Every structure is written in structure tokens, then in C-alpha cells.
């Protein structure tokens, strides 16, 4: 487990079956009971996931939402991506390519994209200047 600021990052085990889920939840449960929990689950190591694993993800999401928090997935391995997609659970979560991106998403509000190219006449020059020049 890694706590970076207010965001909790946890790495899911290789085998996400009933036995592993129990152990994992023991560790995660107290953190989910905090005020507005922000949790990132790193799914990069998952090789096998069964229904208990999916159920655990949904349970954690429900618990986080109950307390105005959120749970996001990062670096989803191909094995787990297939399972999540087949069960149509993937659309319930925000999914990020890396853990860093997921952490940042809790903190950064999107801003409109800036102009892609800089104008040749400089940004301070507007119509008034063009009129004066022309």
C-alpha cells in the first residue's frame, strides 16, 4: 500500500480469487471507512480474476461512493481488462493507463486546451493594432 497525499494506492494481487479477496479487503476496509476516500487500485499484476474479484471491486466502489469518495483503476492488465469488459463492469470505473495518471485525476481540474500554434504577430496584437497597421 502507498499513500500519496490524500490518495490511497493499492496493488491488487496476481490471483484475485475468493481467498485473496478476503485478505485484501481486510487491509482496504479501514481505509474505505475514512471521510471521502480516494482510492487507486493498481491492476497491473492481475493474472487471474474470478467473480469474487469483480464483486470485491464493486463493493469497494460502493463503499467509497457512500462516503463521497471514488475508486479508480490503473494499469489494468489484459487478463483483468477482458473480465471487466465481458461483465460490463469497466464502464463503472474511471480507468487510467498509469497509477500516476490516476492519482493526478483526483487533483487536477481540466482546463480548456490552449491554442495549438502561436500566431506570428504576437498575442498582444489584436484588431486595433491591425487596423492601425493597415
Amino acid at each position, binding site marked *: 500500500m502507498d499513500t500519496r497525499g490524500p490518495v490511497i494506492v493499492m496493488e491488487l494481487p496476481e490471483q484475485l480469487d475468493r481467498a485473496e479477496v478476503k485478505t485484501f479487503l481486510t487491509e482496504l476496509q479501514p481505509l474505505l471507512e475514512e471521510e471521502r476516500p480516494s482510492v487507486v487500485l493498481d491492476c497491473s499484476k492481475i493474472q487471474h480474476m474470478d467473480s469474487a474479484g469483480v464483486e470485491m471491486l464493486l463493493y469497494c466502489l460502493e463503499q467509497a*461512493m457512500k462516503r463521497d469518495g*471514488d475508486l479508480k483503476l490503473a494499469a489494468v492488465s489484459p487478463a483483468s481488462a477482458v473480465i471487466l469488459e465481458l461483465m460490463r463492469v469497466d*464502464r*463503472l*470505473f*474511471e480507468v487510467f493507463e498509469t497509477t500516476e495518471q490516476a492519482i493526478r*485525476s*483526483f*487533483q*487536477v*481540474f*481540466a*482546463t*480548456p*486546451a*490552449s*491554442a*495549438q*500554434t502561436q*500566431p*506570428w*504577430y504576437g498575442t498582444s*496584437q*489584436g*484588431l*486595433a493594432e*491591425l*487596423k492601425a497597421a*493597415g
Partner: protein
Amino acid sequence: MGFGAVLVISSRNRRFADIAVSSSAQPVSHNGMTGAPLECAEICGRTLVERIIERYAAIDCDSISILVEAGIFLPRFRVEHANVSIETVKDLRPAVTRKLDEYLEQGIDHAFIQWADTYTETDLLDVFCFHRESKQTVTPTFDSNGALALWVVNCEKAQGSPLETLLQQAGRASRYFIREFVTRLSHPRSMREFAADMLRGRCETGPSGRQTRPGIWCDEGADVHRRARLVAPAYIGCGAKVRADALITRFSNIERECCIDSGTVVEDSCILAYTIIGICLDLSHAVVNGNELFNLERDVAIEISDPKVMRSTATVHKLLFTASELIEAIENKAIEKDHKLSKLHPMSQGWQLNGSLIQE
């Protein structure tokens, strides 16, 4: 020296209903917003027309004229800009020529002519400078996908020339190549792509309203139930309601006064203004307008006849809005016997109390 802009909203621009008719076995009726071209539909809070006007207003354009073909519904703009005039015309081409002549009389030497289904984030002043330096009558614009419905015209050189002649000249003129963001609203698919681009921050223009949490834009009066799940990025429009256990996910936008009922999933979809979606439905990769649904995966349009599943409240809202405006105007004693309500709303064509609305 100065420049103006003529923005053309033509019924030849694609309408939702036209696309629906051409794609489905069952013809879809024209009602509510479907009678308007796609650029007159709000996407993430504002129409494409309004976004184009914002760009012209940002460069201090001397005059912005919107020419709307008769019978087109244009929603009210959220922000009123100076120097914007709206004119309803029967025939657009002579109207454009007349407008260019008017500009010349007002001392405006150059004008942009733009079809409102094309939106670009290029630096308009740079386009103007290119046109001025090239000293040609008309300058066409292009992007990587071909010609764009945006030209710059020298009003003096073009005086009296029909629009067709000008556009023919454009074929031989030096072109301005646009590398920045461009969208052409020619199909509901491009509408969906534009919404997703805005939510992803791929363009300068963005959703209206404020971000309640990263990636979630909620506009004025949006009502999201505590048990509803919004997966970022998503947009919830003015007065829209998202009921308990609903899921809004994957770049979906729910527009003004929509209602997503309990347990319904909206994934990668645009729900256009005044649409009510019933309970426990699963909408994916779709553009929904009232009871018309366009599925982008299957490229098919269907009309839902059961109002419990989906329906539109556009006509009701228009009538309520007009009635409230009328009452307010009477209370203020602002209406004289021979005055029309349209004079009170120079920025709005769509909400006017006129024959077409009464017919609806």
C-alpha cells in the same frame, strides 16, 4: 479598415431528422429540435453557432451577421455579444451578397463567410492577415480533410458578385491551410466526437458550467441524485436530472432539461436537450433526441413510440418559456399593440412567438 463575419445557417446543413429518415426503414417525423440543423443543437451546453460567434467576438469583429434560412429553430444564446444581428431570410445566397454590400457601405472592407456547420479553432486574425497579404478577392480555407466552408472576402472587390461566382474564384485562389482543431457537423457521429473532444480537452472550447469534481461538468440547476454514478469526463446540462442508480459514463453529455431515470446507463452517448429517458435502459454509442435514437455502432436510426421509454418535452418547454416571457412583458407594460415579441429578443429567433410556434 475592419472586418465582419457572415454566418450562414442553412436548411441544407444536415438535420437530425433527415439523417434519421435516410437511415431507417421507418420515416421519422420532424418535430421539436429535429427541425433544426445539427449546429443548432446544444452540445455540452452551447450550440456550435454560439461557439463560432464567441470566436469572432474574441477577435473584436466589427459586425457579426447570422443569416438563418426561414423555418429554422435557433435556440437562445447563453451569452449576448455586441455587434451580433440575426436575420431570417428565404434565400441565403442573395442575402450573403447583400450583406457584403452592406458591410462595404459601413466601411467594412473584408468579411468572413462561414457555414455554421463548420467549426475551426484556427487563429482568425492570422487567416485575415493571410487574405490581406495575398490581395485576392476571396481566400478559401482547407484542412487535412479538404475544403472548409469558411472564406475571407474582400468586400470591395466582390461588390455585386453573386456568391456562386465568388466561390468559383475561390477555387483558383491561394488557400489558407488550417492545422488546428476543426469539426464538421455533418452527422450525429461528428456530434458525438465533438462532445468527446471537448470533454477530453482536445479543443479550446469546452463544456459550459463548472466542474464539480475533476472531469465532471454540471451546469446551472443540474440535479444529480446521490446514488447516481457519474464517471468522468461527463457533462450534465442546465436543469437536467439524473435519478438514483443511473450511470453516466465514457464522455457522455446530458443536455438541458433532460431526465435520466433510475437505473439507466448512458455510455458514450449524447442526450440532446429536453429528452426524457425512462427507467432501467442501457444506452450505448448513441445520439438521442426526444424519441429518436441514432445508434452510432450500427449506423441506424429508430423512433421509439412508447413515451415511457423516451420522449421529448421540447414543445412544452418552448410554450412555457414563451408564456412566461409574455406574462413578464405584459407586467412590464413593454408590449404595445403593434409590437411583436421578437423585438424584445433580438438575440433569439427560436423562442419568438410566431406562427410556426403556434402551429406546433
